[in-house]
C-alpha cells in the first residue's frame, strides 16, 4: 500500500504542524524557568514530553483513520493528537491550563481528550491498551466498521497491561491495532537493558496475532504496514501489533540532560530527522514543488501561531471550576 500524493502531502503537512507546535510549546515552556529551572514556574508548568522525531508514526497510522475510529495515546501525545484531528486551539489552551482547553485545564498535556474525534491519552504506561480493546470490541458487537488503535512506547511492552491486552484482543478477535513507537529509550533505560527480545513485534506470535516491525522511521513504510493492519481489522481479520523504529530527538522531558545517551547518538538521530527526509523525497519525486512546500509550511505555522496566541490570551479557569466534572 503506497500513499497517494494527497496522502503524502497530508502526512508532510501534519508532521510540519506537529513539529512547529512543539517548537512553540518548548519556547513557552522555558518562559519563567530561567535562570533557575523550576518545573512549577512559567506559563506551562509540570512535565513536558515532546514527540519531535516520532511524527512519522502518528501520520503513517492516522492517515488510515477517521474521526469515528478510537485512538489512545501516551504521555507523549501531541503528534498523535494532531494527526487524529484533535482541535489544535483547544489542545494548545489545555497545555497552557486555560478555561478554553479541551478539559478546561483539568488534564494538561498528558491528559488530552477530544471525544469529537475519539481521542484520549494518559500518563500511565500501557494504560490505553485495555480501552482500545474494549472500544474495538464494542464496534464489533454493534457491527460497526470502526477500529481502535492504541499507541504505546517500547517501554510499555514490559507492562502487564500490554500482555493482558494483546491476549484479550486476540481471544475476542477485536478490530484493534497496537502501535509501538520504539524510540529506544524508556526515560533513561535502553530497550536492550529492559526488553528480553530484540524487537517486540515477535511478541505478537505469543498471542496468535500478526506482528510487524517497520524500520527507518519512514512515514511511507509505516503507512503501508499500518494500512494493511487497519484494513484487516476493519474487515474482521482481528488485531495486530506493529513496532516502529523511531527517534526521540528530545529528552524524556524538557530539562532532561540526557547523560545516558551514548556519544554521538543525538547527532546521528538529527541527521536522520524524518521531516527533512520526507521533504527531500517529495521534492525529488516531483510530488511537491518548492512553492507548495513554502505554502504548506506557512499554513502549518499559521495554524500553530494562531492556536498558541489564542491559548495565551484565553482566561484561566476560576478556582471553583476544579469541582466541576468529577462526576458526569
Amino acid at each position, binding site marked *: 500500500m503506497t500513499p497517494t500524493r494527497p496522502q503524502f502531502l497530508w502526512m508532510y503537512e501534519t508532521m510540519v504542524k506537529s513539529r512547529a507546535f512543539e517548537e512553540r510549546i518548548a519556547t513557552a515552556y522555558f518562559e519563567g524557568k530561567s535562570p533557575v529551572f523550576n518545573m512549577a514556574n512559567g506559563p506551562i508548568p509540570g512535565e513536558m514530553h515532546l514527540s519531535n522525531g516520532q511524527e512519522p508514526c502518528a501520520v503513517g497510522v492516522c492517515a488510515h483513520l477517521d474521526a469515528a475510529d478510537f485512538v489512545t495515546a501516551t504521555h507523549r501525545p501531541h503528534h498523535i493528537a494532531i494527526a487524529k484531528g484533535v482541535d489544535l486551539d483547544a489542545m494548545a489552551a489545555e497545555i497552557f491550563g486555560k478555561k478554553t482547553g479541551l478539559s478546561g485545564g483539568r488534564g494538561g498535556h498528558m491528559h488530552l481528550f477530544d471525544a469529537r474525534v475519539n481521542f484520549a491519552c*494518559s500518563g500511565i504506561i500501557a494504560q490505553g491498551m485495555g480501552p482500545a480493546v474494549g472500544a474495538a*470490541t464494542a464496534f464489533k*458487537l454493534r457491527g460497526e466498521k470502526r477500529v481502535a488503535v492504541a499507541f504505546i512506547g517500547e517501554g510499555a511492552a514490559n507492562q502487564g497491561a500490554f500482555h493482558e491486552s494483546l*491476549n484479550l484482543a486476540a481471544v475476542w478477535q477485536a478490530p484493534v491495532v497496537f502501535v509501538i513507537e520504539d524510540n529506544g529509550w524508556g526515560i533513561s533505560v535502553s530497550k536492550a537493558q529492559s526488553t528480553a527480545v530484540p524487537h517486540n513485534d515477535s511478541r505478537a506470535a505469543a498471542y496468535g496475532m500478526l506482528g510487524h516491525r517497520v524500520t527507518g522511521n519512514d512515514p511511507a513504510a509505516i503507512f503501508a504496514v499500518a494500512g494493511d493492519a487497519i484494513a484487516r481489522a476493519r474487515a474482521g481479520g482481528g488485531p495486530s501489533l506493529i513496532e516502529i523504529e523511531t527517534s526521540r530527538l528530545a529528552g524524556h522531558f524538557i530539562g532532561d540532560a540526557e547523560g545516558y545517551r551514548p556519544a554521538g547518538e543525538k547527532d546521528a538521530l538529527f541527521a536522520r530527522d524524518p521531516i527533512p527526509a520526507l521533504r527531500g523525497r517529495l521534492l525529488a519525486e516531483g510530488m511537491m514543488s518548492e512553492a507548495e512546500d513554502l505554502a504548506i509550511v506557512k499554513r502549518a505555522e499559521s495554524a500553530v501561531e494562531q492556536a498558541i496566541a489564542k491559548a495565551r490570551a484565553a482566561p484561566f479557569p476560576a478556582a471553583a471550576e476544579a469541582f466541576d466534572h468529577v462526576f*458526569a
Partner: protein
Amino acid sequence: MTATATILPNRAKRNLTIAKAMAEALAQEMRRDPSVLVMGEDIAALGGVFGNTRGLLEEFGPARIRDTPISETGFIGAAVGMAAVGMRPVVELMFVDFFGVCMDAIYNMAAKNCYFSGGQSAVPMVLMTSVGGGYGDAGQHSQCLYGTFAHLPGMKVVVPSNAYDAKGLMVSAIRDNNPVIFMFHKALQGMGWLGTVQGSINDVPEDAYTVPFGQAAIARAGRDITIVGLGATVHLALDAAEELIANGIEAEVVDLRSLVPLDRATVNASVKRTGRLLVVDEDYQSYGVSGEIIASVVEAGTVLTSPPRRIAFPDIPIPFSPTLERPALPSAEKIVAAVTDMVRGGR
C-alpha cells in the same frame, strides 16, 4: 426494611437472595438497554462464583455475557473503552482483594476520565465485587476495602445489605453515567456454601425499580443510640438492637447503603435525636468509613451525650484461623457490650 414503601398492594411476597436480586436487575436492564453487557471471570457458564449472573448466558448469549481471561487489568480497561464509545459494561472483580492487580484501570482511568475530559467523556460502568470475611478464606479473599474505594474521587460506591436494595441499587448503578463500585458482602449473598444471613433475604418486587444513591435507610428506629452500619454489619446491629430491648435500650440502626455519595444528613439527624453514635464496620479501623462517619457527626456540631465509638476490623491483615479471625470481626455481642456501656455507663 426499606422495601415497605414500594411493596405493591395485593402482591404475593417474593423473597429473594441478593444474588438473585442482582441477576434479576442485570437481566431486566439488559432487556431494556442493548448497550448493557456483563464481563468477568466465570460469570457466564458458571453464573458467577457468587451467583449474581446466573441465567444470563442462557438468555443473552456469549456476546453480551462475556467470560474473560484472568486479566483484570485488561478487561476492566476494556470496560472503560467500551463505556467511552457508548456501551454500559458491568464488570465483575471476583474478590475486591484482587484490586491490587487492576487498580490503575479503576482509579486512574475509570474514575478520572470524566474529569480529565472536562465532562466530554463519561464512564458509565459498574464494577461489582464481593467483599467480606468470616469464613476462613484469609487475607487475600476476605477484605472489605470500603474506605479504599470511597476515598478516591470519581467513583460512586454502594453496599447493599438486603436483596431489595441490591436490585434497586444495581438498576441505579447501570443507569448512572459514572463508574459505580457495587460491593456485595459474601455473607449476605445467598450462596448455600457460604451460609447466608437470613435478614438479607427479603421481598423484591418483580418490576424494575431504583434505589437512589446517597440515601441511607433507617433499618430500625430507636431513641437511645444510633448504630451506623453497612452491608453485613447492618444485620449485626439489628441483632444487637433486638437483644438490647431486654436491657431497656432502644437502638436506632442506620444502613448507609451508599458511601459515595454519603448521606450525612440522615446520620446526623439520627444522632441528633439519640445523642449517641456507634459505627460498626467490617473494614479496617484506621483512615476509613468509621472515622469518616464520626468526623461528619462531630463536624456538624451534633451534641453527644457520650463519646462516639466504633467497632471495626483491627489494623491487621485478616488471619486464617477461626480463633484469630472471628474475635477480630465485628459481632452483635461486641455491639451489645459497647452500647450498654455507652448508654448505662454514660460514656
